[in-house]
């Protein structure tokens, strides 16, 4: 019975296997990024980015019609422009990341809407651009896997300066110029993950599997590597359980995965080791020293 529910769907249907593979790849790449986003107070950047890429997708559409490759490439360019501009403004002025990103993404969205209206078609470009995890073809799987690999490698490279830059940016500026590079590289990574994630899996999943696992991890670990591990694990778990849920019921796959992640999050708020509500209400006896 359990076998039927948990294992059989994946053995029987290739689209389920592919969906699972995609979710694992997305978790490996997206969850660590999500932890940094959360720590840097950029949790809403996914939403902003989903709108910021519109002019790029619009230009891609103008040049090549409903060509997913052209629109994704355009989206990437627009996303980079917005993220990097926001990053540069944050570094050189008093404006914090959230405000500078907000201003640029709004401008970008308005530009995108204008381009689309001038062209005169009412196709919801963003709707076309956003994919579905049940429709993983070979090319999309490759893109998602490539993302994950690229992200893990680049994160490993910029890990140290990124961490220092997040906790004590002034110190880093005095000893190295790596801070700016690490910051902007991180933003570029965020864009790549988001845009490719949107195109492969839709906004809900791409952003959700970045941010929710990070929130979950916060309640179980006080330490960065622990957080990243727990985030990845809970993302994979949510993906697996969500797919099973979507298979057994009529709930669409993206929302099912996110609902599982949200349930895990609520569970963590209540019972987590670190500041869980229940732990706070019933603390363990305190130690002598």
């Amino acid at each position, binding site marked *: 019975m359990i076998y039927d529910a948990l294992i059989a769907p994946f053995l029987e249907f290739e*689209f389920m296997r592919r*969906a699972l593979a995609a979710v694992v790849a997305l978790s490996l790449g997206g969850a660590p990024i999500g932890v940094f986003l959360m720590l840097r107070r950029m949790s809403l950047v996914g939403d902003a980015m989903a709108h910021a890429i519109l002019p790029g997708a619009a230009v891609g559409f103008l040049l090549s019609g409903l060509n997913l490759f052209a629109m994704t490439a355009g989206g990437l360019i627009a996303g980079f422009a917005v993220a990097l501009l926001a990053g540069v403004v944050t570094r050189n002025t008093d404006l914090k990341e959230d405000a500078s990103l907000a201003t640029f993404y709004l401008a970008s969205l308005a530009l995108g809407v204008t381009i689309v209206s001038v062209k005169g*078609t009412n196709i*919801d470009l963003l709707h076309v651009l956003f994919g*579905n995890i049940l429709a993983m073809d070979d090319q999309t799987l490759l893109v998602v896997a490539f993302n994950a690999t690229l992200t893990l490698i680049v994160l490993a490279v910029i890990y140290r300066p990124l961490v220092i830059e997040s906790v004590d940016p002034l110190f880093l500026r005095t000893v190295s110029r790596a801070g700016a590079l690490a910051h902007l590289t991180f933003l570029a990574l965020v864009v790549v993950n988001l845009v490719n994630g949107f195109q492969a899996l839709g906004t809900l999943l791409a952003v959700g599997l970045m941010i929710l696992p990070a929130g979950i991890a916060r309640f179980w670990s006080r330490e960065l590597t622990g957080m990243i591990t727990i985030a990845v694990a809970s993302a994979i778990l949510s993906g697996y359980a969500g797919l099973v849920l979507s298979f057994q*019921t009529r709930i669409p796959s993206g929302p099912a995965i996110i609902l599982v992640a949200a349930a895990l999050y609520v569970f963590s708020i209540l019972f987590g080791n670190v500041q869980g509500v229940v732990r706070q209400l019933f603390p363990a006896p305190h130690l002598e020293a």
Partner: protein
Amino acid sequence: MQCLRGFLLVLAVSLGGAPLHAQAPLKVVASFSILGDFVKNVGGDRVAVTTLVGPDGDVHVYTPTPSDVRKIADAKLLVINGFGLEGWLPRLLQAAGGKASIVTVTSGITPLRLGSNADPHAWQSVANAEKYVANIRDALVAADPPDADVFRQNAQAYLAKLAALDGEVRQAVGQIPQGRRKVISTHDAFGYFAARYGIEFIAPIGVSTEAEPSARDIAKIVAQVKAEHIPAVFLERIGDPRLIQRISAETGARVGGTLYSDSLSDEKGDSPTYIDMVRHNIRTLTSALAN
């Protein structure tokens, strides 16, 4: 003497002016491209038709623009589908005001149901299209009585073409072997076509382009295609084509091509008129299902 001359002059001018007045074409607004095509065929050069949702647009989720407001305000007749297709229309009408009379082309047609709603795609059955044309003809006659004869003649000619088309489709379907008359399509827009001509359309998503399938829905379709040996899957112009390709890859069913359901293509495309659209669809279906 002066009086009489003056009176004759006025009479001459008004008689001379009457045809001039009658020649200004009737301003008609159609909600989307298929209806626009019908109006053009019935109205000929006696009407000036503008369409709100143009070629390649998505009439289910259209967002009106200010120029649409103007179009409606200036129009004498508004031609809409009804059956819940144009959910965005009531507010637009409120904004535009104007004195247009409205004709709902589906009046007199019993709707099929799709889930809990009416299925709006009644035009997919050519018999219903003939009803649409009849309703449009009557509305044009009422809005522009001087041209009534023109409209009736045009409509009669066009209805004959439609009747012939209906026969064409029946014959083409007749040539498909009985066991192969089923297809998979992303867009559940062919209910009326299926009911009239006997080809079964199985779809993973509901009526509009908004709904998202669950894994169970996809699994059921894959299982069904495999179990019933459904020969072909079809792409829709609107919707995620990758989903269809995934189902095709997993079941071995052929990807048939593109079917047009909610809109015509532009002049350079392969279905710029309704008749072209139906012909394209039936040709695509038969070639995918034939062997």
